[in-house]
């Protein structure tokens, strides 16, 4: 502010000097005008008169700077927006990453051309009707291999299966998108009647499947289940069957998706299953519900 003021004074003196000649009377009224013009040019925003001291105007600018610093680009609003956007992005990327990872696993399990786990089979259900892999299609199926004379692991796993069935049903709001299946590895002892009584103790929704020795051997092979049932058992023989103790989650196309094992709790298993079902729905693929 001090500089323009000085220049005004200089112009003032200069004008007064040049204006000394022809007549003073005519030049006189011009003086205040030039002065006023000069003032308005140098500090356009101020209606501030000359009396304004440089000290005061300086402190005012500082005040403005301070105010801008306090509220400027880093207000709490923008900070909140920043944090929320960041958190949103992190959550989104995590969800996407998980989804892609699951998809990768599902795709990987499909193999190339021929499915690695699962495939065609012919068995019969507990009413004696023929049951093939086609019956599993259109829904997610949950396949378990076992035998009714199993000492401790199968009953534990079937109790877990019952819990999973209820939890998945609840998560799907009652939609019938999930088929729990029990295939016996021991067809000689596990006839439809025996299986029916056995499975009723666990969950009424479990579909029990049995067949001839060769049919069962074939389905075990398709699902890569270790099959050690003795072929020629005499009536009354007491024996155990070694078998795999995994649940196989199969998608509505009949392709293997993932294994649920002994280490899974009903909660973690339900979570895994629901993630796959929801992925399937999100991709808009068909899913039977009735």
């Amino acid at each position, binding site marked *: 502010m001090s500089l323009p003021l000085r220049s005004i004074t200089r112009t003032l003196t200069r004008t007064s000097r040049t204006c000394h000649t022809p007549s003073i009377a005519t030049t006189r009224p011009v003086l205040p005008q030039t002065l006023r013009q000069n003032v308005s040019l140098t500090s356009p925003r101020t209606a501030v008169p000359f009396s304004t001291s440089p000290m005061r105007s300086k402190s005012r600018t500082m005040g403005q700077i301070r105010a801008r610093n306090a509220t400027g680009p880093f207000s709490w609003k923008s900070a909140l927006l920043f944090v929320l956007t960041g958190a949103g992005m992190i959550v989104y990327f995590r969800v996407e990453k998980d989804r892609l990872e699951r998809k990768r696993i599902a795709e990987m399990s499909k193999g190339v051309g021929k499915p690695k786990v699962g495939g065609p089979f012919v068995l019969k259900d507990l009413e004696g009707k023929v049951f093939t892999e086609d019956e599993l299609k259109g829904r997610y199926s949950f396949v378990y291999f076992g035998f009714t*004379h199993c000492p401790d692991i199968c009953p534990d796993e079937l109790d877990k299966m019952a819990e999973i069935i209820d939890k998945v049903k609840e998560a799907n709001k009652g939609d019938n998108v999930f088929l729990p299946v029990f295939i016996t590895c021991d067809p000689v002892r*596990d006839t*439809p009647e025996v299986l029916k009584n056995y499975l009723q*103790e666990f969950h009424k929704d479990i579909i029990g499947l049995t067949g001839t020795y060769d049919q069962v051997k074939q389905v075990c092979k398709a699902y890569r289940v270790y099959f050690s049932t003795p072929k020629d058992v005499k009536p009354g023989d007491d024996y155990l069957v070694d078998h795999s103790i995994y649940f196989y989650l199969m998608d509505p196309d009949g392709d293997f998706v993932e294994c649920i094992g002994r280490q899974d709790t009903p909660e973690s298993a339900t979570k895994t299953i629901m993630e796959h079902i929801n992925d399937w729905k999100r991709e808009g693929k068909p899913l039977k519900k009735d």
Partner: protein
Amino acid sequence: MGWFSWSSNSNQASDGGRIAPDRTSRQKCWEARDTFFSCLDNNDIIDSVKGDKEARKKCGKEIAEFEASCATAWVKYFKEKRVMEYNRDKTIERIKKEDAATVQDLKSQGWTSR
């Protein structure tokens, strides 16, 4: 005990299958097994197949109850499983000890956990 007397026809299903132990008989069998095994624990017997004589001498009542409540195949399975689990736990313990020793050794040589 009708469930486990396999030779009799009482557990024969009408379509030729063999009726499996139901929840109640399974529970009964497991309880008898646990009682028998805790008796073995008290007498420091791990393998009741090899140490059959000793097991019968020390836990006569328990083994009789166990064998009466469970199918023969189950009895054998549980006895073998006990040995298997014992060996498994011992192996895990040994590996853990070895790991701890290795860590100690490395630390003494100036390694840090990072």
